[in-house]
């Protein structure tokens, strides 16, 4: 499969949002967070969504990952409307195709690094030895081969984030949704994390959607959007401009 062809291939729409709306009702007051988002993403793209805090980036990624249901509009993933899927089907979709990295709370604090990564491989009928092999390889590749038995609290933020990436990659997803993956990291570590994230994009044609509030090396994106008033404003790609 030619990855480059896929990135540029116009017709291969992988993920599509049509007039996506999401509002929350708090004490009878409606908070309209997403107000009609239209977006199509091709396979292998890196889409960066920037925006001020509270703009709705996390909400948007949550809907894309099936963690949250939209109020209106639709999300089409690989040709299937996600709103038609049951909770069960959405969970299976996350198990097989969509991986999410969260903004803050990524790891189970009482599980070791190894166990946190392994969690993604439980319940899929994989043998224990195969699991062990895979988890070790993933953590080794991220430079955490020596930290398998450490609890998240015994790891630095950057290391924790790498464990989260290892877990994300464990299922070999087609789509990675990363919410502020470099949020609290110094520039150098952030750069490392981003390298780890875009490697699968380069090697396996994985699609990456990243949310950030700005301090992010935007130059890696194929497309950049700015989220404002609940809509996505295209900023063009840094590479082009």
């Amino acid at each position, binding site marked *: 499969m030619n990855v480059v062809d896929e990135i540029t291939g116009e017709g291969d729409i992988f993920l599509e949002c049509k007039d996506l709306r999401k509002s929350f009702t708090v004490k009878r007051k409606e908070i309209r967070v997403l107000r009609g988002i239209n977006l199509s993403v091709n396979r292998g793209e890196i889409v960066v969504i920037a925006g001020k805090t509270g703009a709705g980036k*996390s909400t948007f990624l*949550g809907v894309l*990952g099936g*963690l*949250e249901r939209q109020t209106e509009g639709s999300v089409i993933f690989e040709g299937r409307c996600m709103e038609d899927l049951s*909770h*069960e089907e959405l*969970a*299976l*979709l*996350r*198990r*097989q195709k969509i*991986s*999410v990295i*969260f903004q*803050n*709370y*990524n*790891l*189970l*604090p*009482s599980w070791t690094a190894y*166990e946190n990564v392994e*969690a*993604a491989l*439980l*319940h899929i009928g994989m043998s*224990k030895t195969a699991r062990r092999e895979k988890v070790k390889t993933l953590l080794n590749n991220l430079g955490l081969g020596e930290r398998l038995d450490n609890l998240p609290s015994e790891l630095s933020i950057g290391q924790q984030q790498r464990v989260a990436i290892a*877990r994300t990659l464990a*299922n070999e997803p087609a789509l990675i949704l990363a919410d502020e993956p470099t949020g609290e990291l110094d520039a150098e570590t952030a750069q490392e994390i981003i390298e780890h994230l875009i490697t699968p994009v380069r090697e396996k044609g994985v699609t990456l959607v990243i949310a950030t509030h700005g301090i992010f090396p935007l130059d890696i994106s194929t497309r950049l959007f700015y989220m404002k008033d609940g809509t996505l404003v295209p900023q063009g790609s840094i590479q082009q401009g």
Partner: protein
Amino acid sequence: MRDLWECAWRELKRRKGRTLTNIFGYLLAAAIMVVVVGALLYSKEATSSILNRVGTRFIAFVPAHIPSCPECSAKSPDEESEGFVAYGVATNLITNITNFVDKVKKLDTVYDASGYLLFRFKDQKDGHLFTVGGFDPDDFVVSKTCCAAKDIVKGRFLLPNDRGVVILEKAYAKLKKLKEGDEVTIAGSMFSVIGIVKPPIRPAKAEIYMHFDEAEQVINKRMGASSIHNEANVILIEVKSSKVQDEAITSMKNLLPGDYLVASSYACYRPAAKVMGINEDAAWLLTIIIGICAVILALKSQLSSVLERRRDIGILKAIGWTDGNVVSQILAESVLQAMIGGILGCLVAVAILLFVPIEMLSGIEAGAHIIISPWVLVLGFVLAFLGGIIAGSFPAFIAARQRPADALRSI
């Protein structure tokens, strides 16, 4: 499946304090249940073994006031005070007694039966009343209902070939100042005293005991013209167990058409069975309450553990665990604790039953012994298991209902 249990075990090890508390709750409930059931079984066996000592025998007779009883004859000497009695009431005689006793002996529920003559005489000299019991000393049932060789306090018991001898009830001997070797006169016949007995409470006691045929002779002497032959006024009966006594009485009554036979000495054993030993209902109630408490305790603790792990569960769901995966995880944790608690509880209970004198607990001392039925242990384990499922279900339901986005936002 194995992953599930391993994961559950890991989770339980992480929350040692909570896990141990839950396990202890189940342990307590299972142990108490098994001990209570064990003590209950013991108390039942002890009760029936005591009842078997007193509740397996009775006597039957036809009261004299019942007229026109078939296969009966009403015979009595002239004087009011003398005649055939049982329990202080005048009785009729059952004719062809050997035949009737044979029929009684053939009943499934009856162990042994025998005809018995119980006649009240009036002492010609001092006017005192006394009863004479005539039996066959070889019959087993006699030893249970009248007196037995082991009740002898002086002298010896009647032997099959003895003639012209009697044994006396101790109280009567004392009243009359009689000793072994002394002579007594009954209806003009002389008998020598060969033994004194002091039997415990028995339904067919008399003051003087002698051979059946000799009793027949002295009674006939007193009766004059209306002599008796192959007749008796009392039937002594020993049943196979106290449980079948009612049945035995019913079938025995049916042998004599019409409601003529009166069976005695059985009505008291049922209330006795009720007051003896542990109150069964209270014991069960106690066990059920403790069981429910253990489940509620475990449920509460499981629930707060689930609430504490709200975010963890959110993450697991976000990385593709289905609601079903989460539910089985929580249930596995709950059931694992319950099973460990159940097994330990059964072990503790067995130790208690073996080493603590349960006789004290149940308030009965009897020849019975503690029974540790494997079924009770299985029951203890199964109930703990079910308790685990019940305690885990609600928290699991809460965990399953939780939507990952909500869980993850709260930081």
